[in-house]
């Protein structure tokens, strides 16, 4: 039945696509003709002509409009000429797709796949086959400020994306960015730019209801108060999560060995949480102050902290990121200067104790199971100064320096198992406080880092631009590192740009990898070195017509000293080591096509082949990926957005005995009613995973005993629906 449904869908899809191209007629490169026509008219006639307004929802034109990025070099430039392979996602794209979270948007980036972690089901942004359990190899920035946990190296243990309502645009680099951003701009950089006054039109409020008992409400407002431009955003939401079934978990495997029946599997994955997002942006002249706060409460543990289902364990996670930015284009004749002071605080605390193993495990020795109460805070303070100097002919020089201080503190660790001050905690005891001892899950530590970078863009011939950059970083805990980048950009023809890019990146070991000593799951190693990645890219950007843009890139990378938690002999623990290396190569192709005035198509395909040191597939990342998105004005004011996402088969790592994980295809539809001229209401209805495909992401590989804790991988949501209503005051 499902197959038949799918076939019907594909056939009708083809028909619709054919209809969209032919029925609405004329592909258009007629800007010149239009200007010529307008110039024939006199001023009086011109004031009587009806126009299509610029700042309205025109997703078709938006797809092929010239896009600029700042993420590549720090200066705004067209994506075609930027010395990196970049993608821009605008607020209009987000609205068209009907997305309400950053995680739902990123799949449209060629070569980027959003997978799930066995740890809390956090999203993993997998770029070009660079896969790891913690996904610390991608740097996520909010307004240029790293959201980076010192403990795990990723976005924090309770990262659940961020509200799409406050996002103005997202700029993504696939490939390294350490020469500009320093540590962890390794596999890629994602910079989320939040909304300022100009991005919000007065006041807008809305609600959204979704399957899995998901409800959300939001408010956006912008105004000018006493000469200050102000933008405000508020969102509150609650969800039960999709609760897909986990057939067997870590405890199931122990039950088989010890003949117990303690496992809570089959059971559902725990993804419930409430969220509160608040956003504030105040600016005047050369000053801008921004603050974002997120609170996640009753945050479920996914498949459990040790991959043994834990329906009762809950976290509370808080994040505050704020920055004060001074940007003066006119400080002196030749200097364009930026100074940014920023602060990021992240706190995680268990609101209900986390279950490591359920009651009944270990022959029933622990009546409440092995449980733990954890709390940890991180604070990150940065001062960054940079400036462009335009005093040399044909050169644009950028200089920058900065200082970072980060610390993990307020570590509280209470456990009812393991070791306390040299003594084994007897089973059956209450939670015992092991904070401030060597047996806490992470010691309180800090890290200091200062850096200096230099970048030169040299226009050495009329159509040639050479970018060279170098960044030096000095760390208080593991020494210094130097990262270069080179880029040659050639305007081969007026409609074709070719680029050759080289970059080196490093990833700083996270504190969990360095210092974790009593964590029952993963042990740290203070002798770790940073991971290194060298990458080479050849990229082409071809504007075939005004309405058809094509991009192709070929890449190759070598990832050295990759940190992996290597299983220790005998036990269930793993220790961090610079154990692996990986080489990869592949290509990404993208086409953006405004088919008619009322229909557009975005299609991309990515291929990657990554091998470990034994020349085996590095595993877990899809080799093939394709994405197709069409937008269509079906009827005046009615927009239909279709997204088809195909994720190919995922091979396993060489130590994983399981057969490859099957690929999947999800089809998402969003129907939106929006009157761009005078409407106040904006309504949308959508379905996700229309064909209820059994989509799964790889679970963690085997322990040294060859036990795979979650053998049937991590299921994603099946078919589900949403409804959204917005009102513009």
């Amino acid at each position, binding site marked *: 039945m499902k197959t038949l449904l799918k076939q019907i869908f594909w056939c009708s899809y083809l028909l619709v696509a054919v209809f969209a191209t032919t029925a609405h007629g004329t592909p258009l490169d007629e800007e010149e003709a239009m200007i010529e*026509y307008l110039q024939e008219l006199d001023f009086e006639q011109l004031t009587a002509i009806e126009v*299509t307004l610029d700042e309205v929802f025109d997703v078709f034109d938006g797809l092929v409009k010239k896009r600029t990025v700042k993420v590549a070099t720090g200066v705004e430039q067209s994506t075609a000429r930027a010395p990196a392979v970049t993608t821009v996602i605008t607020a209009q794209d987000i609205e068209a797709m009907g997305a309400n979270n950053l995680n739902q948007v990123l799949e449209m980036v060629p070569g980027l796949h959003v997978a799930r972690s066995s740890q809390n089901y956090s999203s993993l942004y997998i770029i070009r086959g660079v896969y790891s359990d913690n996904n610390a190899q991608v740097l996520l920035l909010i307004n240029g400020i790293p959201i980076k946990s010192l403990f795990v190296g990723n976005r924090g243990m309770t990262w659940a994306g961020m509200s799409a309502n406050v996002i103005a645009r997202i700029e993504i680099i696939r490939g390294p960015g350490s020469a500009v951003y320093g540590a962890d701009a390794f596999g890629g950089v994602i910079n989320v730019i939040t909304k300022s006054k100009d991005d919000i039109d007065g006041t807008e409020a809305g609600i959204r209801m979704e399957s899995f008992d998901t409800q959300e409400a939001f408010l956006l407002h912008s105004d000018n108060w006493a000469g200050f431009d102000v933008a405000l955003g508020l969102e509150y939401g609650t969800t039960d999560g999709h609760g897909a079934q986990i057939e067997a978990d870590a405890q199931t495997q122990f039950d088989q060995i010890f003949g117990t029946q303690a496992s809570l599997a089959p059971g559902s994955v725990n993804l419930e949480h409430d969220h509160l997002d608040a956003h504030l942006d105040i600016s005047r002249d050369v000053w801008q102050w921004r603050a974002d706060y997120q609170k996640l409460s009753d945050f479920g543990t996914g498949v459990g902290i040790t991959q043994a289902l834990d329906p009762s364990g809950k976290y509370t996670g808080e994040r505050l990121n704020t920055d004060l930015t001074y940007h003066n284009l006119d400080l002196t004749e030749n200097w364009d200067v930026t100074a940014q002071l920023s602060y990021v605080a992240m706190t995680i605390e268990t609101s209900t104790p986390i279950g490591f193993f359920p009651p009944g495990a270990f022959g029933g020795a622990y009546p409440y199971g092995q449980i733990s109460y954890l709390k940890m805070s991180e604070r990150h303070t940065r001062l960054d100064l940079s400036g462009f100097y335009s005093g040399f002919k044909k050169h644009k020089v950028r200089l920058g320096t900065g200082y970072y201080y980060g610390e993990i503190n307020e570590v509280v660790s209470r456990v009812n198992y393991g070791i306390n001050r040299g003594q084994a905690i007897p089973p059956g005891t209450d939670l015992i406080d092991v904070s401030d001892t060597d047996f806490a899950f992470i010691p309180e530590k800090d890290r200091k880092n200062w850096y200096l970078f230099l970048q030169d863009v040299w226009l050495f011939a009329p159509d040639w631009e050479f970018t060279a950059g170098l960044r030096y970083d000095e760390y208080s805990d593991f020494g210094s590192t130097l990262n270069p980048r080179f880029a040659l950009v050639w305007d081969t023809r007026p409609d074709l740009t070719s680029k050759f890019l080289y970059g080196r990146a490093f990833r700083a070991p996270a504190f969990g990898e360095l210092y974790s000593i009593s964590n029952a799951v993963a042990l740290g190693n203070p002798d770790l070195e940073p991971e290194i990645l060298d990458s080479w890219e050849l990229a082409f950007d071809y504007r075939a017509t005004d309405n058809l843009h094509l991009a192709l890139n070929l890449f190759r990378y070598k990832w050295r000293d990759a940190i992996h938690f290597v299983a220790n002999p005998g036990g269930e623990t793993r220790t961090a080591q610079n154990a692996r290396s990986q080489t990869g190569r592949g290509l990404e192709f993208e086409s953006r096509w405004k088919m008619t005035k009322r229909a557009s198509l975005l299609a991309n395909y990515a291929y990657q082949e990554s091998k470990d040191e034994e020349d085996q597939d590095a595993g877990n990342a899809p080799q093939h990926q394709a994405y197709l998105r069409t937008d269509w004005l079906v009827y005046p004011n009615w927009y239909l957005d279709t997204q088809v996402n195909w994720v190919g088969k995922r091979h396993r790592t060489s130590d994983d005995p399981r057969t490859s994980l099957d690929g999947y295809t999800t089809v998402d539809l969003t129907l939106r009613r929006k009157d761009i001229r005078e409407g106040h209401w904006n309504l949308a209805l959508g379905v996700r995973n229309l064909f209820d495909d059994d989509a799964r992401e790889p679970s963690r590989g085997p322990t040294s005993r060859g036990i795979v804790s979650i053998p049937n991988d991590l299921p994603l949501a099946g078919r589900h629906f949403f409804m959204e209503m917005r009102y513009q005051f």
Partner: protein
Amino acid sequence: MNILSMRPFIVFAITMSLLIVLTGITSPSYGASKTPREYQLKAVFLTGFTKFIEWPNAAFSKANRRITLCVLGKHPFGRALNIAVARTNKRKRKGRRLKVRTIKKLKQIAACHILYVSKSERRRRSTVLRYAQHSHVLTVSDMKHFVKNGGMIQFYTRRNKVRFFINPKTVRHADLEPHGNLLRIADIVR
């Protein structure tokens, strides 16, 4: 490789190729019935203003003979402004030719004859206007209250039509002479 697992990819490939073949078949055509874009019309207005404004000779020099049309900040025009300027220059038998310059620094305003101030410059609009006061430059913008705050021409849209406010006093204050025909069409602000 299991051919069934490749099916979505095959369908994807077929859809793509069909669509691409179809673009080849449908040839571009143009009819005056099409609606122009707001920025296209504004680009034509901007170049058109040069016919209705007279600059004093002091505004030009040997090195700067052309009428320089500057855009400060983010460019909303795409190719439209360059096309409009190129076409105006092509048709010109007499009079000054035009050129477009995208600028970022306020000091560069001194070399401009028309200054289009993008909305992206909202935060420093008063500084921009203060700089512009020292030159013979016609200031134009889409920003709300631009004319009220000391600007010369401000575009606005009403019922999907583009119109503009003008303050002849500030125009004349910069030693520029607006043509009667321009004032007749514009909404005068005093």
